[in-house]
C-alpha cells in the first residue's frame, strides 16, 4: 500500500473514532436530560459543602448540587441583588431552581433565590372590635378564631366596593365588615399580627350581617 493512502486510511479511522465518541457523549447527555425535569424546591438550608447543600422541606430532604454556573439572588431592601454561592448559609430559607433527577433524588441548581425569613400570613375574616387608641382591631375567622391585627403606619388599607379597589384609611374600618389581611406575626404574641395590607370588602347594606369567610390564616415566607 502506498504511504499516502495508508496515512489517509489512518486519519479516516481516527475521525470515525472521534465521531463515535461524540455520538456516545451526545446520547449520554440526551439520556441524562430526559431523566431530569425543571423543578423548584423551597426549604431550609443545612449541611452546606463546597459543591452542594441539603435542603430540608416539610416532607423530605433534597440534595442540591451547586455547579460553577450557579446564580444566587436575594431581595435586599426591595432591590434584586446578585450574591455568590458562599452567601448561602445554614438556616437560610431558599428556593432552588434547576433540573431534578428523580432517580438520584438530586436537584442540579442553576438559580438559588434566598427568601426573606419573615413569615407572611394571609387570612380572611370579619372585623370584630376596633381599638382606636392603639390602632388595632380583631378579626374573627371562619374557624371562630379571634386574631388581633395591628394597623401600622406602613400598613396599606384598600376598600373593595364590588368592582374596584380604592385607597382608604383606618377610619374607614367598621365592625362586621369582611376583610382580607396580609401581614406578619408579632413576635412573642399569640394570635397577634402586624398588617402590611388590609382589604375591606364593602357590604351592600351596612346593617347586613356578613357571612363568616372561609379562609384561615396560613403562613408563607415572603417579605
Amino acid at each position, binding site marked *: 500500500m502506498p504511504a499516502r493512502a495508508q496515512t489517509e486510511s489512518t486519519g479516516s479511522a481516527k475521525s470515525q473514532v472521534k465521531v463515535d465518541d461524540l455520538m456516545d457523549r451526545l446520547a449520554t447527555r440526551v439520556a441524562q436530560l430526559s431523566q431530569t425535569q425543571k423543578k423548584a424546591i423551597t426549604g431550609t438550608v443545612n449541611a452546606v459543602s463546597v459543591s452542594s447543600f441539603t435542603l430540608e422541606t416539610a416532607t423530605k430532604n433534597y440534595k442540591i448540587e451547586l455547579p460553577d454556573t450557579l446564580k444566587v439572588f436575594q431581595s435586599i431592601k426591595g432591590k434584586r441583588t446578585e450574591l455568590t454561592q458562599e452567601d448561602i448559609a445554614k438556616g437560610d430559607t431558599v428556593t432552588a431552581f434547576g433540573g431534578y433527577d428523580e432517580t438520584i433524588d438530586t436537584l442540579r441548581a442553576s438559580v438559588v433565590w434566598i*427568601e426573606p425569613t419573615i413569615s407572611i400570613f394571609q387570612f*380572611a375574616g370579619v372585623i370584630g372590635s376596633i381599638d382606636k387608641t392603639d390602632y388595632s382591631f380583631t378579626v374573627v375567622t371562619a374557624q371562630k378564631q379571634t386574631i388581633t391585627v395591628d394597623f401600622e403606619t406602613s400598613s396599606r388599607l*384598600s376598600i*373593595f366596593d*364590588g368592582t374596584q379597589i380604592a385607597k382608604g384609611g383606618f377610619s374607614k374600618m367598621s365592625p362586621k365588615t369582611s376583610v382580607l389581611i396580609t401581614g406578619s406575626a408579632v413576635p412573642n404574641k399569640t394570635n397577634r399580627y402586624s398588617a402590611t395590607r388590609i*382589604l375591606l*370588602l364593602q357590604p351592600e347594606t351596612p346593617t347586613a350581617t356578613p357571612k363568616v*369567610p*372561609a379562609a384561615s390564616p396560613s403562613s*408563607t415566607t415572603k417579605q
Partner: protein
Amino acid sequence: MNKDAILATLIGFAIGLTITGIIIVAPTLARSAPKFPKITLPSLSLGKGKSAKAIPTPTIATKNEGAKSFAILVPISDSIVPKNPVSFEGSVGQGATSVLVQSDTDDTVCPVAKDSWSCQITLSEGKNDITVHEIHDSIVASSKRITLFYTAESL
C-alpha cells in the same frame, strides 16, 4: 317345578327389571326432556280492612351538569412560571360577583364573566403563595391557595 311357579318367577323378574330401568334412566330422560315455561299463578290479596300505603313514584336525581364551582384552572400549583405577569383563569359558582387574588405584593380584582374569571397577576421572584377568594356580594364565599415559582433567569 310347575308352570305356574316358572311364570310367576318370570313376571317378577320382568317387573323388577322394569323398575330398575326406570330408576336408572328416568333422571336422564327428565333432563333431556323439553323445558316448559314455569307457570305461576297470580297472587291474590284480599282486603284486610286497611287501605294499602301508596308507594311514591321514584324520582331520578338529576345533576346540574352545567353548573360550575370555584376553581383555579391556570396556572397549576407548584409549577415554575416562565414569564411575569402570569395569566390566572378559573371558574366560579353561581352567585359569584368577583374574584380577589391576594399575592405577596398586591391585591387584585379579577372580573367575573358568566361563570369564569381571568386576570394578570405580577409575581415576585422566588416562591409565591397566592390566595384566591370567590366573592359573593362583598362576602368571601370560598378561598383557594396555590404556590408558584418564578425566576427572571433562564433555566
